[in-house]
């Protein structure tokens, strides 16, 4: 049924409307139970790649469990869980964590929301600004995980591994003089927080939790910067098609002392490109597809980046800040250029 309502009104005017069939009236019925983990205690459970296939998933009232959803989903709610370790593969919409205590969770999503929680450790990939409400003692780190199918699951959930705001938290209920949220100490051993699944069901999973293998490039976010030198690197369509951004980031992390502060994938119009890069040089490039921007930091970051970029981009166009002093201005222009205006209450 589509639409109905109060009986008085414009019956006559609306009478000749055709009945409409929506996609949800036609779709194949699935059993919600197959997409729910509820009232469990002390178990290791979950789903393998291909078992959720972009559907909604529900986790409710679990205690002392290890839960692994190794697939992409539409949206996930996690309610009333205590002392659980949880992995959630790429979530196309929002994840909502409510009334949970003492959980360690790794997840990737478009929107991250919590309410009435305490003592959570979250390894997060989130495309938009994560928000918390009535939540205390929550700590955040960058999502750091690998298994064979994960990269394609990000694509299926329409999430870019480069658009990550894991440390840019908005707290709706700040408490004066206290920090409701903090950062997980740097270079964490993810396995210590979220052990790999031990049960037979997951035996075939080939998991890595190293920085080197992570599908999401590890960023330092709002952690303290090591150097006063930062610069912006931007990749355009052709370089992105040849996987240059990931190669550059990984090589920078493995071969130098520089850090990657933040990354973002977005689309630009030529006029935006002029505003950010002060040149017409990239106008044609931005019409071909998305741009990936990377903020990198380190004493020698410009020189080191120049060498790496020659190697990674193989002749494809890229942007690199002219000087370390121009870096901060570039970074600001790129990462804030499309922040939409919005009213305060």
């Amino acid at each position, binding site marked *: 049924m589509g639409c109905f309502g109060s009986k008085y009104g414009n019956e006559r005017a609306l009478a000749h409307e055709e009945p409409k069939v929506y996609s949800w009236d036609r779709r194949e019925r699935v059993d919600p139970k197959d997409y729910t983990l509820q009232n469990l205690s002390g178990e290791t459970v979950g789903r393998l790649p291909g078992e959720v296939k972009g559907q909604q998933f529900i986790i409710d009232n679990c205690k002392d469990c290890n839960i692994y959803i190794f697939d992409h989903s539409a949206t996930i709610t996690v309610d009333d869980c205590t002392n659980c370790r949880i992995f959630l593969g790429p979530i196309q919409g929002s994840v909502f964590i409510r009334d949970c205590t003492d959980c360690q969770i790794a997840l990737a999503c478009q929107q991250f929301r919590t309410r009435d929680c305490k003592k959570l450790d979250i390894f997060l990939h989130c495309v938009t600004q994560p928000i918390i*409400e009535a939540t205390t003692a929550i700590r955040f780190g960058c999502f750091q995980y690998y298994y064979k199918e994960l990269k394609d699951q990000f694509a299926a959930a329409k999430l870019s591994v480069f658009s990550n705001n894991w440390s840019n938290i908005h707290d709706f209920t700040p408490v004066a003089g206290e920090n409701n949220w903090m950062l997980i100490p740097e270079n964490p051993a993810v396995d210590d927080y979220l052990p790999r699944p031990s049960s037979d069901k997951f035996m075939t999973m080939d998991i890595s939790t190293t920085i080197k293998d992570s599908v999401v490039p590890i960023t330092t976010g709002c952690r303290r910067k090591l150097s006063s030198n930062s610069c912006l690197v931007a990749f355009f369509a052709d370089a992105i098609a040849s996987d240059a951004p990931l190669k550059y980031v990984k090589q920078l992390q493995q071969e130098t002392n520089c850090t990657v502060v933040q990354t973002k994938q977005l689309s630009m119009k030529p006029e935006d490109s002029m505003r950010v890069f002060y040149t017409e040089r990239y106008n044609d490039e931005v019409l071909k597809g998305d741009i990936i921007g990377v903020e990198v930091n380190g004493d020698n970051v410009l020189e080191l980046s120049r060498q790496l970029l020659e190697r990674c981009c193989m002749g494809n166009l890229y942007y690199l800040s002219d000087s370390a002093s121009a870096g901060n201005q570039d970074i600001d222009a790129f990462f804030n250029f499309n922040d939409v205006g919005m009213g305060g209450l």
Partner: protein
Amino acid sequence: MKKQSNKDLRILLLGLDNAGKTTILKKLASEDINHITPTQGFNIKTVQSSGFRLNVWDIGGQRKIRPYWRNYFENTDVLIYVIDSADRKRFDETGEQLGDLLDEDKLAGIPVLVFANKQDLLSAASASEIAENLNLHKIRDRKWQIQACSATTGEGISVCNKINPVNRILLMSIDWRFTSCCVYGGKNVGQLIIRESMICISEYSYLGLDLIS
């Protein structure tokens, strides 16, 4: 009446956090819906629909900021209340919030369109189930409609067919202005009725509907 123009309508979009209000707003305006941040304040957009200018106010639904909703009640023509049909855990909470809104003096008599959003999700309750749950059938003091929709697929909210839900609620709103004019018109009521009827007829015809058939 107090409006600047009869083609300008103020629409208030409310509902719990995560219901899909901003996604609906962006979809109505044909904008990208994959990078929407939870709303910390409000968004306002003007959407054209069948010759009307809909000024849609989308206010954040987080529990902490719901007390601010009342700051936006004034001069509202239509209330659109959005529900996440797949969040069964919060049906009670959303029902209470809607009940509170319907009790507000400043929203008395204002038509309400309930969007039963996220119908694409597997655990979504149907519009009739939600109407039952929320006791919508008990509403006697205003026009109301419930519409199943999915902001992500665009179904149920799209503005391209003639009698889409927004136009439907516009009709209700115009009708309401007409009725309230009859009731509150005072001593010039005769003249007012005539003038307002003319406006109503011209507005109905704007929607491609034939009122005097």
